[in-house]
């Protein structure tokens, strides 16, 4: 392994330190400072993320940093490859968008300090810090701490309203998350006991195909699935994501569930890149397929808009796990598994934008109407055309229709399925798309219908917030112009570099 | 000399262990919280005291002996505090707010 930090490695430290410092300062100063600090940290953090992306792109190499000049296995390393950089920029863009959107809702009035604004801005920064720590973490225990940080930032977001049902949802979420953490930790100690290191790069060189590695990775994966809400461990997600305030839902559904998925990818493709395990990958794929079918069907039957969107998250998470049977497959060529892999990552990114936009659109609709019953949406399309438009754009990506990131992602997954000769995944992908089309059109048809009586809006929705929602939805659409082949950026710093070259 | 000290140690520690045993039996057999606490504290304070006494014969130097004694005193104090707290919550009228 390279023995020294790469130039620009300090950017990785900044990516974590900036939001952490912001959160600390917000708690210390309190009151109305929290929001101001967040709006200073947001552009700075975005700039850091973009700088990391540019640096990775320019040098065609992963950024690396050794904290305190202690080298693994004794010390802890940070490492940003193309995948990390892409995820960090996604997170930064979304956090900034959500922050702009939330400004009105969590505006601190002058006078004594208020609970919700202070807590929201602190948690927003904390979520960001922990996501960055997850994306650049290179040490399995450091990643555990990052995951816990993420959990403690995400759970209170669910119950920010303080309603009793959100308290129950938050508690259930926390219990699932803790269950996941403890399994993850169990796997980590097994790996340390066997190979004497927790560093991902070192582990990838030491791990052999033997029971101990299998057990460790399976246990860790099981724990992460509970955190990522993959079927059948999804029970906590819909009430938690639907019960949270709209900006919080956008964070939770768009970003937070992607972190455990990201770690599963790290484990399967980075920690043990040379140990393809067909059977276990098929299990993950099957769970993903069941999530797609089950989540979509239940979404179709929802009566409330936010719950529908939350169940659609359950389904969309399913797609992410289809990459395992398709990319971890000794029979497919390297380039085809790279296509599938790229498709999975694109799905994660475009779903993040689309789902955040949809949750925020639903939040605006609920704010205007005072409820989010789908049956009562008639006429809202005329009252809030921009918001409904954004909702539709997000839906495009969920259905996998062009032009949208979801289309490219699903097309890549389809290509991978056909190339691998596993046509049944293709059937699942297409069925999921149809079902998504069903529940999106169900909502859109309602919103575009004429109201039987003139609609009385409880509050007017500012143009600024609607613009933010459209902008995020447009990001999901723009991802649709990505070429239909493996992205060079995502391959930088991966164990088998050079696209298409089988080692 | 050392044989006699060893004998004293064994005697005291065994006696201490007996009180621990008695306290544990009391904890398991007594009917309500307050009498259970009674059995525990009486027996354990004495039991720990005897064990410490036994170990004092083996102590190397004054400092070690003082440390042992302060362990006993600290345990006495902590035990008394926790007992008070438990008794507060356990009394029939319930915990006082």
């Amino acid at each position, binding site marked *: 392994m390279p023995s020294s930090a790469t130039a620009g490695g300090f950017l990785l430290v900044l990516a974590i330190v900036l939001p952490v410092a912001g959160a600390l300062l917000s708690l210390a100063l309190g009151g109305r400072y929290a929001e101001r600090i967040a709006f200073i940290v947001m552009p700075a953090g975005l700039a850091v993320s973009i700088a990391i992306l540019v640096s990775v792109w320019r040098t065609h190499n992963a950024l690396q940093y050794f904290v305190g000049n202690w080298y693994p296995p*004794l010390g802890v390393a940070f490492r940003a490859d193309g995948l990390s950089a892409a995820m960090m920029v996604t997170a930064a863009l979304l956090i900034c968008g959500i922050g702009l959107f939330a400004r009105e809702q969590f505006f601190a009035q002058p006078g004594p300090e208020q609970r919700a604004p202070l807590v929201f801005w602190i948690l927003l920064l904390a979520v960001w810090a922990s996501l960055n720590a997850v994306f650049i973490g290179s040490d399995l*225990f450091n990643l*555990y*701490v990052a995951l*816990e940080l993420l*959990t*403690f930032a995400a*759970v209170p977001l669910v*119950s920010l309203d303080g309603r*009793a049902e959100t*308290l*129950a949802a*938050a*508690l*259930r979420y*926390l*219990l699932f998350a*803790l*269950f996941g*953490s*403890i399994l993850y*930790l*169990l796997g980590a*100690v*097994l790996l*340390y*006991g066997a190979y*004497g290191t927790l560093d991902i790069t070192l582990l990838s060189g030491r791990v052999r195909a033997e029971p101990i590695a299998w057990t460790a990775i399976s246990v860790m994966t099981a724990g992460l699935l509970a955190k990522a809400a993959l079927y059948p461990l999804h*029970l906590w997600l819909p009430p938690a994501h639907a019960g949270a305030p709209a900006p919080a839902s956008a964070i939770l559904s768009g970003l937070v569930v992607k972190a455990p998925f990201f770690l599963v990818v790290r484990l399967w493709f980075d920690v043990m890149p040379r140990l393809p395990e067909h059977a276990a990958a098929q299990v993950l794929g099957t769970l993903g397929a069941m999530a797609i079918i089950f989540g979509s069907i239940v979404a179709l039957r929802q009566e409330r808009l936010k719950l529908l969107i939350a169940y659609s998250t359950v389904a969309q998470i399913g797609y992410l796990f289809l990459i395992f049977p398709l990319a971890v497959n000794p029979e497919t060529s390297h380039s085809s598994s790279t296509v599938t892999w790229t498709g999975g990552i694109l799905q994660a990114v475009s779903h993040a934008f689309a789902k955040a936009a949809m949750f925020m659109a639903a939040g605006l609709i609920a704010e205007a109407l005072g409820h989010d019953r789908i049956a009562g949406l008639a006429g809202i399309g005329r009252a809030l055309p921009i918001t409904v438009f954004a909702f539709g754009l997000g839906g495009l990506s969920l259905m996998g229709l062009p032009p949208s990131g979801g289309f490219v992602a699903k097309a890549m997954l389809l290509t991978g399925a056909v190339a691998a000769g596993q046509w049944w995944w293709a059937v699942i992908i297409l069925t999921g798309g149809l079902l998504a089309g069903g529940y999106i059109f169900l909502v859109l048809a309602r919103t575009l219908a004429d109201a039987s009586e003139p609609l009385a809006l409880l509050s007017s929705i500012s143009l600024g917030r609607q613009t933010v929602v459209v902008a995020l939805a447009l990001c999901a659409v723009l991802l649709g112009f990505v070429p239909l082949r493996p992205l060079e950026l995502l391959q930088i710093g991966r164990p088998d570099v050079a696209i298409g070259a089988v080692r | 000399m050392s044989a006699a000290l060893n004998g004293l140690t064994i005697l005291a520690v065994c006696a201490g262990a007996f009180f621990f045993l008695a306290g544990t039996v009391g904890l398991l057999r007594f009917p309500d919280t307050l009498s259970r606490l009674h059995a525990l504290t009486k027996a354990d304070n004495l039991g720990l005291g005897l064990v410490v006494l036994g170990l004092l014969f083996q102590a190397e130097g004054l400092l070690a002996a003082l440390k042992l004694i302060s362990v006993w005193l600290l345990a006495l104090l902590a035990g008394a505090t926790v007992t008070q707290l438990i008794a507060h919550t356990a009394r029939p009228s319930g915990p006082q707010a």
Partner: protein
Amino acid sequence: MTEATLYGLCSAALVGVGLFGLIMHPQPLRKILAFNLIGGGVFLLFGAVARRGAAAGLGGDPVPQALVITGLVVAFAATALAVALLLRLFQETGRATLGSDG
């Protein structure tokens, strides 16, 4: 069998026992308790691994030992948050369960 192996096996059993409690108990407080039980088991495995790595005049590998200290603190924070949520839920609704599927 060394003591490290013995305690390693003990921790494996504790993980199973705690897992059973976590799955089967309907009350959240019992689930929190079971989570701590599993935590104790997993941390004990760190201890067994550390003990196996005794070298350089140390009774155990200090790295896993330090990780356990970090882990214990995090587990305490998690327990405190879960208990606070549960107590608030009880205050608001008068019940301390999560409903049918909890």
